[in-house]
């Protein structure tokens, strides 16, 4: 295999890496004045990476002797990642301009580009070390982003907390990787799968070591997707980070980490399905339950959405627990719809500003929104009912897909318990609707931004019943993506 073909397969990452480095130089020399230009250039780089995906980058080949996979699954995940990253860049200027004591600097789009590059490597990883390098690139950029409002103590705290806990999780993951390497003799997914297939997991030393490795790897991944019991950082980081960054955290890295978990589970540890399925089922149900119960008492909308993201990860994991191509396709379907709902919700949060333009974060400040800003209230109501999985909104189809896969795989107890827990989740989503529609207005919000308004409308239309028309295309695409893993 010649080098040019390998580079062609990794073209999206190359575009992002080169673009990020070039823009970093521009930022270094241009200073804060170049923020706007760098932001738009970064969006252009993401668009370029999206175009680069259409070629061999999603053609199904393996680059660099199996270290990197350029298959349809990675392509699908990257499309979602790039879109979410671009939205996170577009949201930032308005937020920082109007928030007192915080300025947007040109490093922000550059960090997002680096993070996107790392996420691309995560979802394309064919080797545990590629995986780790991608994960760290993504995480290090994210730690800085979390503390981007330097003068704000909550933001600084979020960055520090994220860093310390993230480092711990990386350590756990690396330990798991070292165990797997030690007991299989390879870090390539294919060879690990071969070793798992060759070793009956009966309890002798060798299989015990493998199992420990598997458990540690999944624990590290669970931290990244913020699945219970490794979710503790999520609410604090989401609350403290600047809202555009929170929107980013809740969307792109989540998609990347879920896709990574799916790939590791299916490609590297497929033969040990029985073993990891128990972990996934536990993490799934625990996330759904905790995400639902802990959200009930929250007063801060960003914390609430943090618990909501934990809850949603739990549902996505139901699809993974099925372990079938339909299951993987349902996870991707779920993440696609989740992305629209989450980004839409955070866009609405960005609109919550008092008369002076300062951000509001309490749920109570939404009171009576349906009178003061009916369009915004309707959009948020759509997102909330959709997150709760109530038909005819598109969020129902996301849950439909994962439960379909679970029932098809015969996991009835999982499906029934998951569905019952989802009623608890519905309660707090309803609370937001209640606050907006049933309570009397307490104050009015500042006028919103046109770009944000447009993005909210796009997300709301996608999540509305009109989204169902996208089902045939979406299911064909996700099934094709899932098929590339099996």
């Amino acid at each position: 295999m010649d080098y040019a073909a390998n580079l062609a397969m990794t073209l999206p990452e190359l575009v992002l890496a080169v673009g990020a480095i070039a823009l970093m130089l521009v930022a270094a020399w241009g200073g804060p004045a170049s923020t706007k230009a760098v932001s738009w250039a970064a969006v252009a780089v993401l668009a370029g990476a999206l175009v680069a995906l259409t070629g061999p980058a999603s053609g199904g080949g393996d680059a660099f002797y199996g270290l990197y996979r350029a298959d349809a699954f990675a392509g699908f995940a990257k499309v979602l990642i790039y879109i979410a990253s671009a939205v996170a860049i577009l949201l930032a200027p308005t937020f920082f301009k109007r928030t007192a004591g915080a300025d947007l600097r040109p490093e922000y789009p550059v960090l997002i580009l680096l993070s996107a590059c790392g996420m691309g490597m995560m979802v394309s990883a064919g080797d545990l070390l590629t995986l780790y390098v991608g994960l760290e690139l993504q995480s290090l950029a994210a730690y800085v982003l979390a503390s981007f409002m330097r003068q704000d103590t909550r933001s600084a705290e979020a960055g520090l907390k994220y860093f310390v806990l993230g480092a711990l999780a990386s350590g756990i993951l690396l330990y798991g990787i070292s165990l797997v390497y030690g007991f299989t003799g390879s870090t390539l997914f294919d060879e690990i799968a071969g070793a798992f297939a060759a070793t009956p997991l009966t309890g002798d030393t060798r299989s015990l070591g493998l199992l420990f490795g598997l458990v540690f790897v999944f624990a590290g991944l669970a931290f990244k997707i913020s699945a219970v019991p490794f979710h503790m950082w999520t609410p604090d980081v989401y609350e403290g980070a600047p809202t555009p960054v929170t929107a980013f955290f809740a969307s792109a890295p989540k998609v990347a980490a879920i896709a990574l978990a799916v790939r590791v589970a299916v490609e590297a540890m497929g033969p040990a399905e029985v073993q990891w399925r128990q972990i996934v089922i536990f993490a799934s149900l625990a996330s759904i339950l905790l995400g639902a119960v802990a959200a009930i008492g929250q007063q801060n909308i960003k914390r609430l959405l943090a618990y909501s993201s934990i809850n949603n990860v739990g549902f996505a994991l139901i699809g993974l627990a099925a372990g079938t191509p339909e299951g993987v396709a349902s996870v991707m379907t779920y993440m696609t719809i989740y992305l629209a709902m989450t980004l839409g919700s955070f866009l609405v949060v960005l609109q919550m500003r008092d008369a002076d333009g300062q951000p509001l974060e309490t749920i109570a400040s939404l009171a009576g929104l349906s009178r003061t800003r009916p369009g915004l209230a309707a959009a948020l109501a759509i997102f909330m009912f959709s997150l709760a999985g109530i038909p005819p909104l598109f969020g129902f189809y996301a849950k439909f897909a994962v439960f379909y896969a679970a029932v098809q795989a015969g996991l009835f107890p999982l499906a029934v318990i998951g569905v019952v827990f989802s009623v608890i989740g519905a309660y707090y989503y309803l609370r937001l609707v209640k606050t907006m529609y049933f309570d009397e207005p307490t104050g009015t919000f500042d006028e919103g931004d046109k770009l944000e308004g447009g993005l909210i409308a796009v997300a709301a239309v996608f999540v509305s019943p009109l989204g169902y028309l996208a089902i045939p295309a979406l299911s064909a695409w996700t099934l094709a993506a899932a098929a590339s893993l099996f």
Partner: protein
Amino acid sequence: MSFPILSLMLAVPAVAAIACLFLSAQAARVTALAATLIDLALGVVLWTSFDVGGAQWQFVEYAPIFGRFGWALGIDGYALLLIVLSVFLMPICIGASWQAIEKRVPEYMAAFLFTEVLMIGTFAAQDLFLFYIFFEAGLIPMFLIIGIWGGVNRIYASYKFFLYTLLGSLLMFIAMLYMSITADTTSIPVLLNYDFPPQVQTWLWLAFFASFAVKMPMWPVHTWLPDAHVQAPTAGSVILAGVLLKLGGYGFLRFSLPMFPEASASLVWLMFGLSAVAVIYTSLVALVQSDMKKLIAYSSVAHMAIVTIGLFAFNAQGIEGAMMVMLGHGLVSGALFLCVGVIYDRLHTREISRYGGLAINMPRYALLFLLFTMASIGLPGTSNFVGELLSLMGTYQVSTTTALLCTTGIILGAAYMLYLYRRVVFGEIKSEDVRAMSDLTPRELWLLVPIAAAVLWMGVYPESFLAPMRKDTQILLARLDRAKPAGDSQPTPGKGNGGTGIVPAAHAETPAHGSAH
């Protein structure tokens, strides 16, 4: 494919609902009324062009546009009658809200129109998941209607309504997933003839039961209903009692009975037991209510129990009777809630003790209220008589004890309804503000008189309503025949028994008939 009249009936209120959101209050009222009247006209066209005795499924539409499931619509006689009931009540609801709703009128009208779309969709859906989407989506507008325009305790009631019904439905959802995967189809007509193993049937039946029993509502999961009714605005109560409660009965009829006949037969005891308790218990509870809406809400639970026993009687009288009770109750309870609304609009209280002597200053109101009271009791000549009689006759053939217990409901029903009527309408006028209440306005007459006419029509000439469903009942009974439980009664055909006209060929199907000779 013929003209897609069902899709049109869904599209008209949907478009009008979206339009309403952008209109002023008065324009929204007019738009909503126009849209519901167009749908009523389409409903009449639907009824007149329905080929009685023709194909089981008519006006079929199919478009596989959703991947795993499709846009499949089509109706049989049962669905036809319930759709006609829905479109008949909707303009009345809009009219009832004309003046009573003053705040946020455009949103209110939009919510009602969306409810209409979802109700028609639920009855017309021929695809398992399309049905589920319509069925479940109805929660959203109703949640908003109760929560925004409801009474003092509206928020509690709206939550209770939403979460209660959601929990029930989600178990049904898992069962539907299993069915669609096992049978490899989402088409309801195909599933109607698919035989699930009896063991599996029981689980599926229970999952569907969880949903429909809450919707129905059956004792002991009925407690959301009185709260929802009391807090909902008048038109919300009408639609809740008139149509949404019928979704439970329709579900039993469409899914539980034909899809799981063995399970239905083996769990008849459960249905009969819960229904008998419901009839007696909720009737007694209704007797002591001091709030008019609550009283009628409890009476709804009792009437719905008559529906469930009829459905699970496994014979033509029972099933057709249950349908007649559903239709009749839809009209009568809707009308009773309107009657409460009329006086609530004037005095702003639902306390029975605040009223009295309305016959003196509101004679026209007293007359119409009397008619609906009598219909609720089941007086011959009114709609409920036909339904209750058939339903209890059907039940008697299977379980004499249940029939006996449930018949007491009619006596108790007479007690609480007449007691209500006496306290509100008869006696002396107790206070000046009651004396100042004016009689029905022309608008209110326009709301109540059509319902009164329909109630009498159903009572005097029920054949119009029985004819469309007769063939469906035969198909359903043919499906249920293999699982039919043996009855404990031994009816002997007496003189002139074949000539009642209401129940043709009924006795020929009774197994006890043979042994009686």
